[in-house]
C-alpha cells in the first residue's frame, strides 16, 4: 500500500525517462537521480550505524568470550574483576527484576490514564495531561536519579518498606532490612520513567480504534466501561502489549537513575528491599576503570547481552503495533 507522500516522487521518477525533452530535459532526471542517490546514501547510513554498534561491541567483547566462553559467562553468578571471575547472571537478574517491578507498576497506571483521557474524562483534561506526560518524558534520567536518591529512597526506608514488611511480609519479596536502596527503589523510578512511553503509545493505539466500534456498543446500551471492555480493549490489546514491550525495553536499558538508587551490589536476592545491580549500571560504574582486555571484554559482553534484549523487545513491540494499525486499515478498506 502506498503512503500519500510517496506518490509524488515515485510517479515523477517513473515519468521522467519517458519524456526526454530537448536540451534541458535531460538535466531534469539527472538532478532527480543525484537527489535520490544522495538521500538513499544518507538513509543507508543507518545500516552503517547499526553495523558499527554490533561490530564494535563484538570486537571489544571477543577477548572475554575467548577466555570465558559464552555459556559460563551468561550463567555464571560470580562477578569478581580482581579474580577475573565474570558471570553475568546477577546483572541479568537485577535487570529483569527491576524492569518487571517497573512494568507491574507503570502498566496499570498508564493504561488507566490513557483510557480515562481518551474514553472517559472530559475533553479539556487532554491537553494539560498530555503536556504533563511530555514533561515527564523530557526530564533527563540523571535528574530522576537525583530525586530517587534523595527523596524516594528515604521515604522507602521508613515508612514504606517497614509497612510492606508488616503487611505483606509473608511473601519472600517483602522481607529483610529496609535499606531504601535496592530493587524496589529502582523499579519505582523506572516505572515513573517508562510511564510516558506506555501512556502515549497507548493513547495513539486507542485513537486507531474505529468510532463505529464504540458507537455500536453504546447503541446497544452498554455503559462506557462496558464499551471499553467489549469493543475497545479486545481491539487495542496487541497495541497495548506493544506499548508495554516498548516501555520494558526502555526500562532494561535505563542507566543513570538505576545506578543511583539500586545499591550497586552484585547478587541474586529474593527480597525487593535488598540492593542489587543491573547490566547498564555495572557498565556505568566499572567501564572507565576496567583494567585488562578480559574485564573490558566482559563488560562489552554485558553490553552485547543488553543490546540483544532491547533489540528483541523493540522489534516485538513494533510488530505488535504494526499489527494493530494494519488491522484497522484492512477493516477500513473492506
Amino acid at each position, binding site marked *: 500500500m502506498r503512503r*500519500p*507522500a*510517496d*506518490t*509524488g*516522487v*515515485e510517479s*515523477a*521518477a517513473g515519468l521522467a525517462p519517458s519524456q526526454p525533452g530537448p536540451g534541458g530535459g535531460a538535466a*531534469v532526471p539527472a*538532478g*532527480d537521480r543525484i*537527489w535520490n542517490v544522495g538521500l538513499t546514501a*544518507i*538513509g543507508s*547510513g*543507518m545500516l552503517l550505524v*547499526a553495523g*558499527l*554498534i554490533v561490530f*564494535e*561491541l563484538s*570486537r*571489544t567483547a571477543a577477548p572475554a568470550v575467548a577466555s570465558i566462553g559464552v555459556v559460563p559467562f551468561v550463567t555464571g553468578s560470580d562477578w569478581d574483576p580482581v579474580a577475573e571471575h565474570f558471570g553475568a547472571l546477577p546483572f541479568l537478574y537485577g535487570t529483569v527484576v527491576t524492569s518487571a517491578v517497573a512494568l507491574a507498576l507503570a502498566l496499570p*497506571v498508564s493504561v488507566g*490514564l490513557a483510557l*480515562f483521557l481518551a474514553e*472517559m474524562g472530559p475533553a479539556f483534561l487532554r491537553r494539560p495531561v498530555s503536556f*504533563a506526560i*511530555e514533561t*515527564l518524558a*523530557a*526530564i*533527563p*534520567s*540523571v*535528574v530522576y536519579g537525583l*530525586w530517587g536518591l534523595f*527523596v524516594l529512597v528515604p521515604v522507602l526506608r521508613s515508612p514504606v518498606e517497614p509497612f510492606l514488611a508488616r503487611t505483606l511480609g509473608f511473601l519472600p519479596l517483602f522481607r529483610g532490612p529496609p535499606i531504601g536502596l535496592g530493587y524496589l527503589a529502582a523499579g519505582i523510578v523506572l516505572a515513573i520513567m517508562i*510511564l510516558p512511553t506506555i*501512556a502515549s503509545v497507548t493513547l495513539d493505539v486507542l485513537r486507531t480504534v474505529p468510532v463505529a466500534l464504540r458507537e455500536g456498543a453504546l447503541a446497544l446500551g452498554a*455503559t*462506557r*466501561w462496558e464499551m471499553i471492555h467489549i469493543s475497545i480493549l479486545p481491539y487495542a490489546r496487541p497495541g497495548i502489549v506493544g506499548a508495554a514491550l516498548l516501555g520494558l525495553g*526502555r526500562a532494561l536499558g*535505563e*542507566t*543513570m537513575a538505576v545506578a543511583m538508587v539500586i545499591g550497586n551490589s552484585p547478587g541474586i536476592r529474593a527480597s525487593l528491599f535488598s540492593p542489587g545491580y543491573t547490566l*547498564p549500571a555495572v557498565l*556505568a560504574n566499572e567501564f*572507565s576503570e576496567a583494567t585488562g582486555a578480559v574485564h573490558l571484554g566482559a563488560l562489552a559482553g554485558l*553490553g552485547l547481552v*543488553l*543490546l540483544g534484549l*532491547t*533489540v528483541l*523487545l*523493540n*522489534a516485538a513491540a*513494533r510488530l505488535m503495533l504494526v499489527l494493530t494499525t494494519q488491522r484497522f486499515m484492512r477493516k477500513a478498506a473492506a
Partner: protein
Amino acid sequence: MPWRLSSRLVVNHLATAVCGAMVLVAFVPLVSLLWLVISKGAGGLSLGFFVNRPAPMGEAGGVGPAIVGTFFMVGMACLVAIPLGVGAGVYLAEHGSRPFPRTVRFLTEVLSGVPSIVVGVVAYAVLVVPMKRFSALAGAFALSLVMVPPLARSTEEFVRLVPVTLREASLALGVPAWRTSLRVVLRTALGGIATAALLAVARGAGETAPLLFTALNNQYWSLRPDQPMASLTVQIYNYAISPYESWHEQAWSAALVLLMLVGLLNLGARLAVRDRVGGRR
C-alpha cells in the same frame, strides 16, 4: 432489572474513578520532582554558580565548565547528527514504502531503543581506545549516535505532514522532483524539522550515560576536543553520589540549570512547530 442496571452503573463509575485516580497518581512524581528541584536548587543559584569552575569541598564552586562543555559537545554532535538524522528522515518520508526504506525505518526504530550506555561503549571502542585518552570528541560522537535515530523518525513524521497537493501542484508546474522536494516540501516542513532538531538537542543535553567513559569529566575550563570535558549531567551525577552535603546542594542547583535548559529547548520546539506547520495548514 432496575437492580441489574444500577450494578452496571456502579461498575462503570467505579472503573471511571479508578482510571481517573491513575491520572492523579501519574501527577504525584512529576509535581514532587519539579517542586524539589526548584525548591532545593534555587537557593544555590547565583552568578558565580554559572561562571565559576568547581571548587574543592566546602568552597563555593560553580558549574561553568560543565555548562560550556554540554553546549560544546552537543554542538559538535549536531554537526553530524542533524545532517544525518534529517537526511535519513527525508529519505524515509520520500521513499517510504519500498522494501529497502522499510528496512531502514525498522532499523531506525530499533536503534532509537538501543540503550545510550551501549552507545557509550561503542564510542569508547571507536575513539577512546585508539586515541588512548578520554576526549570531548568521543563524547560528541556518542551523543550524535544517540540523537540520530529519534531525529530521523520525527523528521519523517513532520515531512509527511506536508499535504500531497503542494507537491503535486509544484510537479504539475514542471518543477523537477528534486527541486519540488527541496524548495516546496522541505521548505513547508522547515518548522517541523526545526522542532525535531531542537528535541534531539534537548535529548543530547540530558544524556549522561554515553559521556561517562567517553568525555569523562573535567574540573577545569577546556575547549579542546581531544581532552576530557565536563558536562552538566556528569557533574550532577558525580556530585549526587559524593558523600558531601554541600556537593548534594550543588547537584540540585545543577539539576535546576539542566531542567531549565531542557525546558527552554522543548519550549522552542513547540513554538517552531506552531509558527510554521501549524500556521500554514
